[in-house]
């Protein structure tokens, strides 16, 4: 009975979350597609035509997986942080808190909403990329699994950010000052093999590198990192952030007085 009720509650949260970003599609779905289009025009076609192959692939082909992943990361994070913070801000979090829905269901519902947005945007960006290159998929399993896990990880990050946020400014600090630099330095536009040895080692500290390379392996069959390491790193981060998010919910941090 308890499980059945929580499955219904989970579905309710997920439907609500999907309806939210679909209702405001001009804000949530169009901008990432336009951004990706511009990246591909400028870096892929204009500048990329002056660049020799990267790891044996035409430059536009090389950067497409990174651009898809960048969209997945920023949109998964952005969806959960803005949605959950708005829920707190408008106090409709109380609808959930007074009901018997479990903390895990709340977290899973919001994360699933973030994953849904990440996948929707990822699919749109992939469609945009078809205007520039033939997207060959090396391994659907790796591609989808890495995308799913990365989206889950950043949805958890967005949730934790929203729990601590006290103003709308607080929900833009991490995306602007942490996520964007990590994503750009995570190998979207280059292989770390072209970096000096020291910077190659520094790059290995960046967790986004493992996600982009794992995804690139799924698409191109090409990666700077062994895919098993990518999975381990992503799963480890999911474990830590998932535990943290559950702890915050259990103790009512930021949502109960």
């Amino acid at each position, binding site marked *: 009975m308890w499980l059945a009720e*929580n499955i219904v509650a989970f579905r309710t949260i997920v439907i609500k979350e999907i309806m939210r970003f679909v209702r405001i599609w001009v804000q949530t779905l169009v901008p990432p597609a336009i951004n990706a289009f511009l990246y591909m025009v400028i870096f892929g076609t204009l500048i990329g035509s002056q660049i020799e192959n990267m790891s044996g692939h035409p430059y536009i082909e090389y950067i497409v997986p990174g651009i898809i992943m960048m969209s997945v990361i920023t949109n998964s994070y952005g969806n959960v942080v803005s949605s959950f913070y708005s829920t707190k801000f408008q106090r409709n979090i109380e*609808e959930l808190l007074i009901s018997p829905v479990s903390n895990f269901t709340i977290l899973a519902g919001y994360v699933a909403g973030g994953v849904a947005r990440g996948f929707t945007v990822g699919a749109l960006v992939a469609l945009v990329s078809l205007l520039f290159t033939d997207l060959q998929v090396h391994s659907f399993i790796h591609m989808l699994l890495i995308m799913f896990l990365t989206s889950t990880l950043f949805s958890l990050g967005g949730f934790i950010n929203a729990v601590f946020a006290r103003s709308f400014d607080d929900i833009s600090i991490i995306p602007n000052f942490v996520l964007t630099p990590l994503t750009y330095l995570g190998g979207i536009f280059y292989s770390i093999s072209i970096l000096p040895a020291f910077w190659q080692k520094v790059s290995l500290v960046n967790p986004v590198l493992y996600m982009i390379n794992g995804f690139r392996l799924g698409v191109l069959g090409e990666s700077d990192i062994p895919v098993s390491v990518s999975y381990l790193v992503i799963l480890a981060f999911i474990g830590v952030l998932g535990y943290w998010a559950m702890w915050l919910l259990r103790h009512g941090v930021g949502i109960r007085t």
Partner: protein
Amino acid sequence: MKALSIRNLTKQYDNGFQALSGIDLDVAAGDFFALLGPNGAGKSTTIGIITGLVNKTGGSVEVYGYNTDTQINEAKRCIGLVPQEFNFNVFEPVREVVINQAGYYGISRREAAKRAEFYLKKLDLWDKRDGNSRELSGGMKRRLMIARALVHQPKLLILDEPTAGVDIEIRRSMWEFIQDINKQEGITIILTTHYLEEAEAMCRNVAIINGGRIVENGRVSELLSRAMSETFVLDVEDEGNQDELVLPDYTINAREPGRLEIEVPKSQPLNRLFEELTQKNIRVQSLRNKTNRLEAFFLNLVKTKH
């Protein structure tokens, strides 16, 4: 059967403010109960703890026998809450607000849609079902929160100042609805309100909370019997000299041609007042009770306990 049983409930906020200092409270199943108190007395904190929105510092709460420490989900299923402030997603359509709330209680979407239709129709919101909830008037928003609170069919409905800012016509219709569900469906009602005439007219039992403590608790009729005085407005036909009128046992609060406002101690029967006025050639044509008796009692109590 007790709908609510609270023992030694305490709450101290992180900033050190002691909101509740050991509250004991029982509400019988089927009761229409008023929880009254001035702003900051601890009403909303108490409601927050009962509903799981506020973490308590100490004590225990049982809802229909379910302890909120050990059987929180069972307790939550028994409670419907109409909060003081609008707290639904204003960008969601009206019907979605109700259906989603049902979903959080594990009610399937199909069943939730049926119940949403039932309650939205009952509360005259069915015509607005597909509109954005932010487009509703204040009174409609209040009714939407009532529909949302009832959709999982709770046994205990807590209304935290539900008629604040609502015009009198809508207020009356809301109270009729609430009284109906109390009488016909046996739903226990706990009400906080600043309109004390509402509490006096509708509630059978009352607790008054002040400074984080329950300072009075009992039947409304019993509390009213302890009120010290009442003020009456009398329309009079003055054949004597009303300006020089002196009534030793009463206080005349205001006098104007054809009208007197007199405070009558509980110890003095009204008949005696009429007799004295007649002796002074003042004939009473009509009278009405000026003050709400519960309000007078409440103000007196809050003043003396401070």
